[in-house]
């Protein structure tokens, strides 16, 4: 109670300060600080302007409206309680947190009810310096700037957002871990437009989104140890022309539970996807192994083309399969036929079903015959705002006021050492 009262008071003084600042124009920059406490030192929206490079924005428990935009480098945005610090867009604000600086950390808080993204980490800014991404911003892929390095998003709960829960765009060297993303109208977690993403998506729970995890023109990403259940599509991998840097190459997916992605109480997927564990469209050089892929009503893994991007040199290795409509469908188009793909599911999954049938027995070395697998019509969806709230998850083990220093590059996991998980992976806790 006292927190929300302080917030109201801080909000009032902030409004006054903003009036004063705008009256003076740009002649005086506000003094920056190493540590900004919200709401004691500043409102959520002010904090982004006040934090100095290498600084920390520490947000106290409470519910906050609006958007935090951070452009300085090496900034850490931290909530003091993952479930108690709630940025709520109220279905009016566009984004919860927008980070454009290098090596930004966002952790230990909740973002929900934003019309677009919960957390947007982007390497593209508009003329005013505001962070933008693909979408209704007039973005043109051919003008893609060089990627911005460094990000860490962890222990964040992103729910009921109108586009993506956690979105990294035109960035490299990132880690997205221990988050929960739910009720995303598009996807829970999205990594897009990076020729060398050097990104690890690990230990997350993505549930009841249109798409759990989406990777578009995102090369060199590992997706490991995630719980990806009850979405319409578990993982969607795309190569396209709506973003720069297609096709998606060198994706690794291992040690995930990818199950029951046929939940109807979710937002509609834009191209009608439903009941799909992993959709690979126009991917090159993917390595998918040691996952539990089960209960996806239509298809476990669907490998196809995207426009003129053909599926090339993808490998589907051993794992655990069960109760999918069909485990693996291989269906590139005639004008972008696949090559070099192989299915080596191994003796442990002798019962794997494929379309066309018998693919698993062919292994590598010969081009696979194609099927014309297509999706049946998807059931109607619900508003992202109406998707059931997710359960609470544990936050950072300790909360202090030390900002994080992120490395220049991320060490990606060696997936050959990863084992197939059990069905209860991250079922609760995280």
């Amino acid at each position, binding site marked *: 109670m006292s927190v929300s009262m302080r917030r109201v008071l801080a909000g009032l003084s902030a409004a006054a300060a903003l009036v004063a600042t705008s009256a003076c124009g740009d002649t005086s920059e506000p003094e920056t600080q190493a540590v900004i406490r919200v709401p004691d030192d500043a409102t959520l929206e002010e904090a982004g302007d006040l934090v100095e490079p290498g600084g920390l924005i520490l947000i106290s428990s409470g519910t906050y409206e609006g958007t935090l935009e951070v452009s300085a480098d090496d900034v850490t945005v931290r909530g003091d309680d993952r479930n108690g610090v709630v940025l709520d867009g109220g279905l009016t604000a566009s984004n919860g947190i927008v980070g454009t600086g290098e090596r930004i950390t966002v952790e230990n808080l909740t973002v929900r009810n934003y019309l677009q993204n919960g957390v947007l980490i982007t390497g593209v800014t508009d003329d005013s310096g505001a962070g933008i991404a*693909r*979408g*209704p911003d007039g973005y043109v*892929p051919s003008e893609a700037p060089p990627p911005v390095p460094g990000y860490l998003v962890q222990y964040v709960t992103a729910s009921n957002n*109108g*586009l993506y829960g956690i979105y990294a765009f035109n960035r490299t060297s990132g880690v997205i871990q221990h988050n929960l993303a739910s009720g995303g*109208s598009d996807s829970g977690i999205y990594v897009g437009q990076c020729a060398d993403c050097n990104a690890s998506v690990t230990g997350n729970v993505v549930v009841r989104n*249109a798409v759990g995890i989406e990777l578009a023109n995102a090369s060199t990403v590992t997706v490991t140890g995630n719980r990806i259940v009850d979405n319409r599509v578990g993982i969607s991998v795309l190569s*396209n*022309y*709506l973003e720069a840097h297609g096709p998606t190459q060198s994706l690794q997916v291992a040690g995930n539970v990818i199950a029951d992605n046929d939940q109807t109480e979710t*937002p*509609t997927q*834009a*191209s*009608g996807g439903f009941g799909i564990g992993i959709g690979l469209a126009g991917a090159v050089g993917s390595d998918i192994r040691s996952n539990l892929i089960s209960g996806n009503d239509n298809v476990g893994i669907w490998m196809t083309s995207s*426009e*003129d991007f053909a599926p090339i040199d993808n490998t589907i290795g051993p794992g655990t399969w069960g109760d999918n409509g069909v485990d693996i469908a291989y269906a590139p*188009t005639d*004008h972008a036929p696949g090559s070099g793909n192989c299915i080596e599911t191994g003796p442990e999954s002798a019962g794997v079903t494929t379309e066309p049938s018998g693919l698993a027995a062919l292994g590598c070395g010969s081009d696979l015959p194609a099927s014309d697998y297509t999706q049946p019509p998807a059931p*109607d*969806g*619900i*508003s*992202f*705002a*109406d998707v059931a709230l997710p359960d609470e998850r544990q936050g950072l083990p300790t909360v202090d006021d030390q900002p994080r220093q992120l490395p220049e590059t991320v060490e990606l996991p060696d997936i050959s050492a990863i084992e197939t998980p059990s069905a209860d992976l991250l079922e609760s806790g995280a």
Partner: protein
Amino acid sequence: MTTPSDEVGPTPGEEAPKTGGRRREFLTGLGAATVAGVGGWALRGQLAGVTEPAESGSPEPNATGSGKPGITHPAVPQRHIKVSVLELADPQPQAVHSAARNLAETVPSTTEDAGEVTITVGVDPRTARGLWPERATLAIELPAFDGDTTDLRTGGHLVIQVCAETAVAVSDATAALTALVPDATLVWERTGYRDAPTPQGTTRTGLGFLDGIIAPRTEEEQTAGVWTGPEQDTFAVFRRMTVLSDFTTAPVDEQERAIGRRRDTGAPLSGGETMSEIDLFAKSPDGEPLIPAAAHARRAHPANIGRALMLRRSYSFDPPEGAGVLFIAFVNDPQTFIATHRRLDEQDDLIRHTITDASGCFFVPGSWEL
């Protein structure tokens, strides 16, 4: 059953273009005004005051010399067209070149009410590659598409497109031109009409929807998508299509979802007005894309294939059932059309209701010099 002409009569009070000249002058000025900005489209009343093109760079207000006839000139396409595809008795490239050039440079006599009469001539891809190996490198025959009829008319050595404000003018001019190649065989032909232009220079097709909202109007856009180079060569795609009656008799809201635009205003279902940009990412609160997944406006959007905008237009004709569409595209690489059509074959709630019974892609040289 309603016929297209019942549906799309001129708006009450709007002047019918009886005198092509005056109407044309007005609209050409309008078209030129768009170079200065889309705001120029807004209101007819304002634009009536436009006496000179804002910044056309042309010394003549009516800009008879700007743009390529029948392609980018006039700015608002004429009301009538006739397309004729001919096979010549002598298929040698030099003979095709000589015949085509002669046709292109002929000025048939027409009456004053014919308005601006344009003659546009193209040659088949194989001949073009032989004649202009440097300029026509991308020339290619179209592959088969899903809606093509088994007896698709295709091939031919050259195409003649005649446009004018009156039906009789295109008919007379075409007859005068084909008389110059008496040994030629007609492969296919089609006449077509466009309804009265809207203030924006668009027109309603036989489907009752607006044609020509999204077009490469600026020099920059035309350089990117229409002209192969400084010679202003281009490729012309012609498709003689019928939109089947299961589409034309469907409820309007169903048609609108198939097109992705409103039928009355042409505004995209993602919001805005007639000329607003389509927002492919806009969604309803329950996550449904406002431009449906299979809507023609989404499927045909050039952003999907990473290519520049083609110049497309269509003329109407009236088959016994359904609606006839003579589709025309001017594009600097036929692959742009092919890649787009593959997307339409994969999924498109308009195109799956169409059949195409004649088709061709021709190289239209900006100059006939070899």
